């Protein structure tokens, strides 16, 4: 047994990380069921903040929303005094789902199986036939409702997002993500939000391949050729990758800035700021846009470990997150947003730009299949087969000025190795 093996309740996992470090990733990580079980324990139930839902989804007292942290079903509630709570969606009696609807509003949470009833914080209030029927049956005299409850999940609400963690040692959300990541969260999400629409997509790959994919700035213009094929000027001059200044380099921001028009003569002489200028689009309303921020950033895609991505591209604001559905299945959720005070024409531009991303995204639909191609391509690989990732160097540090780099992927693996105890 090698020194790199890690002991876990899921068993001993025989992974030897290549000595080259985070520039190499064994393909075995994408298909090994023991690794998958170990991730549930160390990452999804580990010292990590997970996306639970948006605060607007539980806007009113009594609102609840169900979801998942890894494989574990969870409930988020807002109680009568307005506080948000989260708990495992698993009855303390027999383990049935307590909430079987995705969302709703309730005074209490009641398991339909035997009517064990909980308050909105998950405390057991009562159950059917506790004292039996006609003096017979019932719970023992020693039974106390206060000994039983839904397993609580620690929550923190930040920038309109409800985060949850199973772990008592997880540092606060702001510390976990670091100041640079929090600044961009505040920029994008600190105003009252409005839900514009929602869908999901089942992708046939291990969850970490999608986590890599959203951190892969190298592939963007190579796999996704919509902009270049249609000669759409994104007017981006510079951009880069900003790695989180947090305890772990798990998170990053990929961004592009608007061109400096004085420097770009062709734009100055044409007097256009439209992304459609010179394009081959027959329906140019796709890309009608307005300048929403004065920081010059036109594209901001932020990946927060392990499963959350927030995009603000042109005027399209969307939160996407994913849930592992087995070692080679991942459900990817897309939630499109605007601001509560958007004008009609602003909302219409966001609606049109939503065509760029999602399951049918003109710019990004390839991501639905590319990770599956890796999943299928790495079948039959040996423990010695691994990915090679040295684009932009071998280290994990911010890369201002260039997105032709795999630095954010290396950052993901650095954090992953540490939390998993893999060398």
């Amino acid at each position, binding site marked *: 047994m090698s020194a790199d093996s890690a002991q876990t309740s899921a068993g001993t996992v025989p992974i030897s990380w290549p000595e080259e470090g985070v520039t190499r990733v064994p393909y075995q990580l994408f298909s090994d069921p023991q690794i998958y079980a170990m991730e549930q324990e160390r990452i999804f139930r580990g010292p990590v903040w997970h996306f639970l839902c948006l605060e607007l989804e539980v806007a009113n007292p009594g609102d609840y929303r169900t979801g998942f942290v890894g494989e574990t079903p969870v409930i988020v509630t807002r109680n009568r005094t307005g506080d948000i709570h989260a708990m495992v969606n698993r009855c303390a009696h027999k383990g049935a789902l307590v909430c079987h609807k995705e969302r709703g509003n309730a005074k209490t949470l009641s398991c339909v199986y035997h009517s064990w009833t909980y308050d909105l914080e998950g405390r057991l209030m009562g159950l059917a036939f506790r004292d039996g029927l006609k003096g017979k049956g019932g719970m023992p005299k020693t039974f106390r409702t206060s000994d039983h409850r839904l397993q609580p999940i620690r929550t923190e609400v930040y920038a309109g997002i409800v985060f949850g963690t199973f772990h008592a040692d997880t540092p606060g959300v702001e510390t976990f993500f670091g100041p640079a990541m929090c600044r961009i969260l505040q920029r994008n999400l600190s105003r009252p939000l409005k839900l514009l629409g929602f869908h999901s997509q089942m992708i046939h790959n291990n969850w970490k391949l999608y986590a890599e994919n959203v951190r892969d700035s190298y592939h963007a213009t190579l796999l996704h050729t919509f902009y270049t094929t249609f000669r759409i000027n994104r007017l981006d001059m510079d951009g880069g990758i900003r790695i989180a200044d947090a305890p772990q380099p798990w998170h990053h921001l990929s961004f592009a800035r608007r061109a400096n028009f004085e420097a770009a003569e062709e734009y100055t002489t044409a007097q256009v700021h439209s992304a459609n200028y010179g394009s081959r689009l027959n*329906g140019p309303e796709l890309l009608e846009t307005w300048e929403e921020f004065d920081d010059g950033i036109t594209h901001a895609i932020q990946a927060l470990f392990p499963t959350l991505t927030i995009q603000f591209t042109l005027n399209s604001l969307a939160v996407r997150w994913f849930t592992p559905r087995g070692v080679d299945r991942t*459900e990817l959720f897309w939630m499109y947003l605007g601001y509560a005070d958007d004008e009609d024409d602003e909302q219409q531009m966001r609606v049109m730009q939503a065509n760029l991303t999602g399951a049918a995204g003109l710019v990004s639909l*390839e991501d639905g299949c590319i990770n599956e191609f890796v999943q299928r391509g790495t079948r039959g690989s040996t423990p010695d087969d691994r990915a090679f990732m040295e684009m932009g160097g071998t280290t994990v540090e911010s890369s201002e000025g260039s997105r032709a780099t795999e630095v954010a992927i290396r950052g993901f693996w650095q954090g992953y190795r540490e939390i998993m105890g893999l060398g």
Partner: protein
Amino acid sequence: MAEQDNPDREELPVDPALRARIGDFLLDVAHAIDDDRLEAWPQFFTERATYRITTRENEEAGLPVGIMACASRGMLEDRINALRTANIFEPHTYCHLLGPSRLRLVAPDLVAARTNFSVIRTMQNGESILFAAGRYQDEIVIGREQPLLRSRTVVLESRRIDVLLVIPI
């Protein structure tokens, strides 16, 4: 509520000839997709037509974003051009199965139609699955030689798409 869903609106009779004409038209639109004559597909729409693919969940909540939203025939053409020249995906085909249409003559030259459908998707390895099921809510202009879609809302039963959606429904 869409105009065609209004139960209080007075109904004009739909004669059998018109019913047959609309039925053939809806099949032609579906078969153009199934037969990979995608360049012909936008020609079934008026120039200012809207075409949306959304989900039952979004539609019932009145949310404007679904999975695809086109506000002109030009945007439909762009979708097809992108599919042919820019987008990368594994080859696959559709087989549309249309149910009978419920037609309402909304105006002398405008028919509202609801048609349930299912779409079977077949990949190059031979795998066929039920990719989509739902309903078309259509507004069809009938004044001209060929009927044309003025608006089509594709309401999918499921909010979950398998892999990706690139060929229109």
